[in-house]
């Protein structure tokens, strides 16, 4: 099962590297979103509270524009039936989740670097806390958005429906990671943030388990 999932991930990666469909669009999207924020800020000095919120706003909308591809592209090319033949649903989900995880990590590292370079108030004082919350947050985003992508790939009006369906599911995660980013910017230690870290960790575990259990029903129809 693991080798098949890995093969599926490699297939997605190669086809992505050849066409660069998602990567090009995503990089441009990130640049546009950040420059819109920079233009609207102008010369004002914005608070750390606002910066850590805006950081996750950009991440959320970039994820919404890029992550739906995983399943929608299979439906568009008509290759989902072939996938049905070669692998079990959980294997397919693992492969797609792995690809989305890598995509989310690459995308968010770019966003984090750009933020650190362009925003004066985005100063990370507790780097370890930031990294831990960043990793946990990314896993949560990838897990929830992969299962929602599977749902919308079977529905009409895919592009508009994706953020609408994902936002309520991601809301508890985003509220907590915004808090965590703020804490790491203020230089809080792990003891102050343990409750928030526990919430994000629980969210990741619940969403991963739930989406593995439910993916069977979405995939078989």
């Amino acid at each position: 099962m693991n080798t098949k999932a890995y093969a599926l991930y490699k297939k997605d990666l190669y086809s992505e590297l050849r066409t660069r469909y998602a990567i090009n669009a995503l990089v441009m999207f990130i640049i546009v979103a950040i420059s819109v924020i920079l233009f609207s800020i102008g010369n004002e000095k914005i608070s750390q509270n606002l910066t850590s919120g805006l950081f996750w706003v950009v991440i959320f909308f970039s994820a919404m524009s890029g992550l739906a591809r995983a399943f929608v592209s299979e439906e568009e090319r008509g290759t989902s039936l072939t996938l049905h033949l070669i692998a079990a649903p959980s294997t397919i989900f693992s492969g797609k989740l792995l690809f989305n995880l890598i995509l989310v990590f690459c995308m968010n590292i770019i966003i984090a670097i750009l933020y650190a370079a362009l925003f004066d108030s985005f100063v990370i004082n507790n780097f370890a806390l930031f990294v831990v919350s960043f990793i946990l947050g990314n896993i949560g985003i990838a897990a929830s958005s992969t299962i929602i992508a599977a749902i919308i790939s079977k529905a009409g009006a895919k592009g508009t429906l994706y953020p609408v369906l994902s936002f309520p599911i991601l809301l508890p995660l985003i509220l907590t990671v915004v808090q965590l980013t703020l804490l790491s910017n203020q230089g809080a230690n792990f003891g102050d943030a343990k409750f928030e870290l526990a919430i994000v960790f629980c969210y990741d575990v619940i969403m991963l388990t739930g989406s593995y259990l439910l993916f069977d029903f979405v995939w078989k129809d």
Partner: protein
Amino acid sequence: MFWKISLFIILAFVSIAGIAFPIVPVPHTWYEFPLIPGLKENAKIIFFHVPTAWLSSIAFLMSTLYSIKYLRKKNLDDDAKSYAAAQLGIIFCILATITGAVWAKFAWGSYWSWDPRQTSIFALLLIYGAWFALRSSIESEEKRATLSAVYSIIAFLTVPFFVFIMPRIMIGLHPGAESIEGGKVVQTASPVVNFKMNGNMLAIFFLSLIGFTILYFWMWTIGYKSILIKEKINKQSIQE
């Protein structure tokens, strides 16, 4: 027929009692409510606002339970039941949001202040909205039932975060949340019921909850039956 008449009597009594019974500093007779400092007449919202909020979450729970049942048995009747529950749920959710917001303007000074409970009812409203948007975008009946069932289960997984966790980490205004009293963050009396209500106020509050819950189940039965009949007629007209 008997229970319909008694339901009417319960709800009529609750409406009259909830609106018209006077609030006095020291209650002497059974129809006088005690004065709660800081709330005064505003305290009466509890008889109508809490049942609507309660029903919007009960409807969400029922919709999810029937979604799980649908995924197990693949019986389209369960999907109709889940749909009828969600239809009522969104109505009660809107009512709870509006009554709460109007009340908050008078009691707390602004319509909306992102208190944890307000955040969670907003999330519930978004979930209902997304659920109906998803349903309307799928044409095949079975597919629609399966995908919306999966979505409602995933959405239900986030409920513990809103109900149990957010009120504990965010500063809130509702009873049960953390609040600031005298410069210190304290945990106020946890469930809504614990706060300064006397016996007759509690009795009317629970009577109102029971009355609204029966009303909900009645509306829900009519709702899903009408959906089933509509589908039957559609199928007949296709066959002819």
